């Protein structure tokens, strides 16, 4: 009984110290972690919902902030921003906050106002860019992996699949008269924003390529780390240019197209676990 009580106390402490809450009350994810930003990964998530109050994701200490008018040695794309230090060497960054909305002080509790969503810095409209850095693992984390899950019923869309043979790129359905060769699979895919009726694209969470039942490779937007001066997906050496062909088209692995029928499977998942799966068959003619 005593053991159980001690365990429960520890569990309660662990949950309260290391659990994280959404920084806004009305949760609208308008951009996900890892999305293309032209030549680099999106290193956080964007939250919309207008000029909402922003709260810390957990109790923390204000360790750095920038507000317009303050001295700065470089142009600041993050606008007005605050950095908090949390337990476990986690740092959270809240960006594009409204002018004069940042709470000045040294420590904040998770239910205390930190600021208000704004449009400062490199921003096309009112939103909060939330980024989370783990100093222990030297990684930028996907905030969705720490925050409570939100309802999401829509599976990702697989729009197109292409084969890249040499320098030529063709839709898989248009492949004709191809000799046995090595081909790279490119997939145009995206997840959908839940709260709007039109198409608002978000990056998926995982893209997996299987050939004859065996996994050939995957892209997972779980965390980003630095490798030889480049940001790469954690656990891989894949930099932005290794992952993206264009904004919503991802570079998957190479397959060997052999004479006869070739089969591969693509699985795309969003963060809530919704998945879309597609089989592809490519017929390769006899070598003459």
């Amino acid at each position: 009984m005593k053991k159980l009580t001690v365990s429960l106390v520890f569990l309660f402490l662990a949950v309260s110290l290391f659990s994280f809450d959404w920084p806004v009350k009305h949760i609208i994810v308008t951009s996900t972690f890892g999305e293309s930003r032209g030549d680099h990964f999106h290193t956080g998530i964007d939250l919309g919902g207008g000029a909402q109050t922003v709260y810390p994701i957990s109790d923390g200490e204000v360790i750095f902030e920038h507000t317009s008018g303050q001295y700065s040695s470089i142009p600041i794309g993050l606008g007005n921003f605050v950095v908090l230090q949390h337990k476990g060497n986690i740092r959270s960054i809240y960006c594009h906050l409204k002018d004069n909305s940042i709470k000045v002080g040294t420590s904040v509790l998770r239910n205390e106002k930190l600021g208000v969503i704004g449009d400062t810095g490199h921003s096309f409209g009112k939103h909060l860019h939330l980024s989370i850095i783990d100093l222990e693992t030297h990684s930028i984390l996907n905030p969705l992996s720490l925050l409570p899950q939100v309802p999401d019923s829509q599976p990702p869309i697989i729009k197109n699949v292409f084969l890249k043979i040499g320098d030529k790129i063709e839709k898989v359905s248009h492949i004709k008269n191809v000799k046995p060769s090595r081909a790279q699979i490119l997939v145009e895919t995206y997840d959908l924003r839940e709260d709007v009726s039109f198409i608002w694209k978000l990056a998926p969470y995982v893209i997996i390529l299987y050939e004859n039942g065996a996994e050939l490779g995957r892209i997972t937007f779980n965390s980003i780390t630095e490798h030889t001066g480049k940001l790469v997906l954690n656990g891989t050496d894949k930099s932005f240019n290794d992952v993206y062909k264009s904004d919503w088209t991802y570079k998957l692995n190479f397959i060997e197209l052999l004479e006869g029928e070739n089969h591969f499977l693509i699985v795309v998942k969003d963060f809530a676990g919704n998945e879309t799966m597609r089989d592809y068959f490519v017929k390769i003619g006899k070598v003459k």
Partner: protein
Amino acid sequence: MKKKKKKHIGILSFIIGIVIIVFFAVPTGKENVVKPLWYNSVTKAEPLKNGQAEGRIWYRSGNIYGYTDLEGNIYLSEKSSFFTSITDSVYMDYSKVSEKFYIKNSDGILLDGFKATGYPFFDKTGKRLLVVKTDLSGISEITRNGQPKWKRDFISTITTVSVSKKLMVLGLLDGNMLILDEKGEIIYQFKPGGSKIPIIVGTAISDNENTVACIFGLEPQNILIFKRENGNFALMFSKKTDTNFRRETLLKFGWNGDFLLAEDYHGVDIVDILSGKLVRTKLKGEIRDISVLNNRMIAVIVSELNNRSYFDIVNQYGATIFHTEFNGSAGPIREIKNHIIIIGIHGGIMRLDIEGV
């Protein structure tokens, strides 16, 4: 009615301030005299179309930027869109969501254009063109037509940058201070310990590129100075400060790299690097800019409090040898030929000469 009266008093005190400065040279001890030469409004100025391109001096006054000369002629007067990077020969002005950037000369004539995903800025000479990622997770150097020279990304947000002819000092959110060479290679990396929270909030590099400094950590915060000997940098000075700045702070080398001037809560700390002595000069408000006149062993400092600006000249012992104040914002300070100061004040620019007697 009250508001109007208050405004009139503000304008009157500003004019009196200008009159005092312009008509009365102020002796500043045995060696220096501060001699105001002219004050020009930049909001009402009609820019001159002709004039020597050489000898142009960039200025800023509030959100107005442009070019003047030592006589106070205005050659360009523009309102800043979002960010303006300006040097004596070239400038760029761009909006917050620009993707295309244009380099213009001091007449406002287009020289080059390029595309970038980030915010570009020049070093103080205009010779190096750098681009910082808008999420502050990387920095690159490019040519004036946008060709990349080098690029470097970090998992930790960049908090502060100092650029010299061949080096760059970067401060990161995780407490690392990096020195990069002109190819973007890390030639020195230092992550100090001893503070509850590791973070770099300020960096500086001396003109001769042999001394580098940073402000490190929270609880306590420290000034660290690194010296280059036989090609390698090594920590040569460290001192706890009374501050715990949680924002970027001003840090500047002066007097041939022998002194370091660091913003503190009540003014500026002046560190004599060779002796390790630290003197404190008490000033009002938050420091906006520091400029050092090497041959006169004095520094010009502008600070601001409640929409009032304070202009102080201090010597290396921390003693104030000249002081005046204005309504409104002031700065930045331009120091030319080691004795001429051009400073933006209240919608105008002013030239002050510091002469020896």
